[in-house]
């Protein structure tokens, strides 16, 4: 009760929510920068390794991009696949089965 009344009369001074929001945004960035400096490099290597098990790829034509937004971050993976890769996969399977 007393707390609610306090809130009512002091909304002008409620700077704590601002502090909280500033910290959340700042730390989301700092954690990404300081905590895992090679995150994008690691992701790129591992994604490349997994896809390469099934499709022959040119490692130069794989791009991984990480965008940190205020509320949502996006991971963009762009892999250029050579034409006719489906037949390559089928041939690979047949070879493995035979």
């Amino acid at each position, binding site marked *: 009760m007393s*707390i609610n009344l306090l*809130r009512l009369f*002091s909304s002008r*001074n409620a*700077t704590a929510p601002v502090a*909280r929001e500033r910290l959340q945004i700042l730390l989301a960035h700092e954690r990404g920068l*300081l905590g895992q400096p090679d995150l994008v490099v690691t992701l790129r290597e591992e994604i490349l390794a997994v896809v390469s098990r099934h499709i022959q790829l040119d490692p130069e034509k794989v791009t991984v991009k990480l965008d940190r937004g205020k509320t949502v971050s996006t991971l963009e993976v762009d892999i250029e696949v050579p034409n006719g890769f489906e037949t390559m996969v089928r041939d690979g399977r047949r070879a493995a089965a035979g």
Partner: protein
Amino acid sequence: MAKVLVVTSGKGGVGKTTSTAALGAALAQRGESVAVVDFDVGLRNLDLVMGAERRVVFDLINVVQGVAKLQQALIRDKRVENLWLLPASQTRDKDALTDEGVGRVIADLRTRFDWVLCDSPAGIERGATLAMRYADEAVIVTNPEVSSVRDSDRIIGMLDSKTVKAEKGERVTKHVLITRYDPVRAAKGEMLGIEDILEILAVPLLGIIPESQDVLRASNVGTPVTLNDAASAPARAYFDAARRLTGEQIAMVVPAERKGFMNRLLGRRAA
């Protein structure tokens, strides 16, 4: 089994030394044997807060370098049995500490005490990394204020990567201790609340120490606040925190200041 606990924060002036002394004395009063170790080489202050500044003969660096034995450097508290201080050097610089030397001293302390509380210097440099290096647990002292919370976050990252435990793939048990908390200002939205801080740092809460003049009173006379006035609000909060360290489950409350009759009448906050 001995536990090595680092009291750390990143930011200076948030209450690391006060908290080391208060928690160390509280644990010792509960019958645990405790060594408090000052890692703030060049700017030692734990001796002063503990009231042992005139009894320092040898220090941590003397022991690390083999000039003195551990028994010669440890200072026994005159008020509480089982409470000992290993002071830092005031004259040397932090480079006199080596990783290997600190490891040896900590291993030796482990055989003699139930608790080894390492008072970390501020910052993220060598002194701070060595203070946390061999820790099993960490108390991250945080003020409800943006720069303190940011620095605590940074220190948490270091505890998860630069400690011996982290390098072995284990985890340092982390606790947040919120100091200088003013419940009235937090309720008004003028100060970060407990929930805000915990959500941001994502580390369990060890205790909430209210802003209080009793803390300065205790350091003025060189007595840990838990010894100086055990009934004061900060002392009660530290006692609860010490019990939580030993594994007890205690409800989290912010102890209130005792109000004088006139203050109560006038609805004023106690001084």
